């Protein structure tokens, strides 16, 4: 086991080279609906129990199934209303189980990125070749069902190995060259995109996805009220929008249809979306577009600045 994942270098949040988003925008805003499939009777994993109760674990399973049966369309209508294309964090088995949902997202030209096969199959305990096979299956499934070359990855249930990002980048290259496998949502160390160090040296970015703004963290872990969540979204936006004048920032709202689309929660969410998209200097976009824009325009200057800053007083000890 390593003390530090080694994926990124220290990069203080001051005097960074200025990022300006397209059309002079100060903040890149993206919404990442997780569209997931949880299994009723998943296989055991020695490191993590899928459900707290013996199977059938109805509380967890049925609430997530609600997200697909009821919640998805509610959130989709809201994103349509505010001109937001979702960046789908996809349990790719959902292409087989619920192709109707995939079609609705395709019609809207939403982005699909990989969130593994099922959210009840964890990376923990996989050999490198097993993890590679799982990632390859997920990218191939997205391509088969949507024609998209998967650019981004969020490990299933945020379960990782030491090589998760390397493997994703490598499989992307193997299947589609530089057109796939170039950004990660798995790291929460920054409010701006950052270069990621990979063993094959590929140009690869971490795009802020925000655990703090994640509805499941807010509702299941922090257990806050819907109105409080709406307020926190707006507070988060206000600060990042202001700081974006100095150098472009990113705000992401990661959502789950089984949380945010509930009848008692969707109003607060809508108020936040209306507020955020009502500002002039917001680039309403997708994860992939942000990553591509960063790699094309700012990746090299970011690397130079990271090197310069780490030389000033010395690198990480």
């Amino acid at each position: 086991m390593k003390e530090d994942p080694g994926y990124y270098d220290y990069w203080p949040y001051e005097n960074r080279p200025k990022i300006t988003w397209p059309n002079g925008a100060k903040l890149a805003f993206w919404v990442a609906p997780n569209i997931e499939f949880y299994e009723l009777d998943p296989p055991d994993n020695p490191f993590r129990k899928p459900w707290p109760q013996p199977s059938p674990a109805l509380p967890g399973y049925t609430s997530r199934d609600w997200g697909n049966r009821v919640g998805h369309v509610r959130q989709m209508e809201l994103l349509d209303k505010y001109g937001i294309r979702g960046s789908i964090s996809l349990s790719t088995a959902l292409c087989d189980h619920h192709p109707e949902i995939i079609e609705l997202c395709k019609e809207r030209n939403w982005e699909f990125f990989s969130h593994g096969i099922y959210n009840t199959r964890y990376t923990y305990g996989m050999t490198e070749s097993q993890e590679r096979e799982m990632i390859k299956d997920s990218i191939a499934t997205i391509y088969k069902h949507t024609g998209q070359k998967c650019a981004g990855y969020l490990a299933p249930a945020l379960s990782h190995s030491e090589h998760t990002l390397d493997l994703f980048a490598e499989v992307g290259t193997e299947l589609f060259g530089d057109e796939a496998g170039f950004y990660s949502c798995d790291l929460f160390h920054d409010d701006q995109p950052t270069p990621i160090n990979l063993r094959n040296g590929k140009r690869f970015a971490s795009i802020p996805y925000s655990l703090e703004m994640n509805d499941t963290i807010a509702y299941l872990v922090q257990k806050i009220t819907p109105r409080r969540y709406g307020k926190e979204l707006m507070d988060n936006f206000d600060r990042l929008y202001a700081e974006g004048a100095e150098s472009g920032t990113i705000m992401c709202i990661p959502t789950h249809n089984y949380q945010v689309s509930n009848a008692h929660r969707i109003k607060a969410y809508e108020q936040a979306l209306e507020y955020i998209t009502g500002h002039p200097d917001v680039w309403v976009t997708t994860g992939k577009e942000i990553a591509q824009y960063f790699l094309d325009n700012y990746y090299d200057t970011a690397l130079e600045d990271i090197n310069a800053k780490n030389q000033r007083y010395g690198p990480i000890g």
Partner: protein
Amino acid sequence: MALLDKDYLNYPERSYGMDHDRYEWSMLQDRKAIAWPNGKKVAVWINVGLQYFPLNQKGIPFKVPGGMTKPYPDLRHYSLRDYGNRVGVYRFLKAFDRYGIIPTFAMNTRLAERLPYLVGTLKERQNEILCHGYHMDSLHYGGQDLKEEKALVQKSLDGLRELMGQEIKGWISPAKNESANTPDILANNGISYFCNWVNDDMPYNFKTKNGLLTAMPLPTELDDYFIINHNLHSAQDWAEQVEDAFGFLLKESATEGGRILGLNIHPWVLGQPHRIQYLERILDYLGNHDDIWTASASDILKAWKDNS
């Protein structure tokens, strides 16, 4: 050395629809719109959980949420739950009558055995009763012995039917928990609808080995215990969430057909002196709203069946 079996990357259920055969996969938006009687938009189903948490809790296979947590005898939790059946429930009844709301009661059979006065009161009211299992510590769970569970369902239903003098067609398991056999056993015991699966906002057909059940939507998300005791929100927060939910469902009903606001509430939670006003605020608001249909679970189910 591989820590996971190679089958960990096999996905036997990866095909169209669900990963089990209990119901058809369908999105709510694709289904026929439902019209409630008299042009009402939102059916309001107030479901009152009348629960008995025994002091000698066994916790098999887990401690029921809301149950005893301290070493025996856990008097604080026992008596605070019991408060609901002595005090809170009578506050509830007054409030329902004052605001013209028709409640449905989900009762543990053991509670009915213990409290003839409450049984007599409920019988006089003639509200619908559904069975909430035997008591809160008699869980239905994966791996439960089939014979044991059959006997438990039968004891719960036979006992409650006899005491209440009602048919009893509805079921909610304690903690909404089940074994793989529970729906089959319920269908074999005269149950026609159950509320354990919180995966939809409208009723839907649920297959069992013994014919169809209807799954009725009673969301845990708006449950007073869930919001107040699990999420640790205030009773005012509960009321605001109910108001926001109702507002949204009403809006959705304008284009998508009738909706159901199912509120599962408990007299030991909302029946407290500092909380009852928020239940009254909701009942007052709903009771005076032109677009709501206050109805029992069975009446909602019947109306759904009649036009679905």
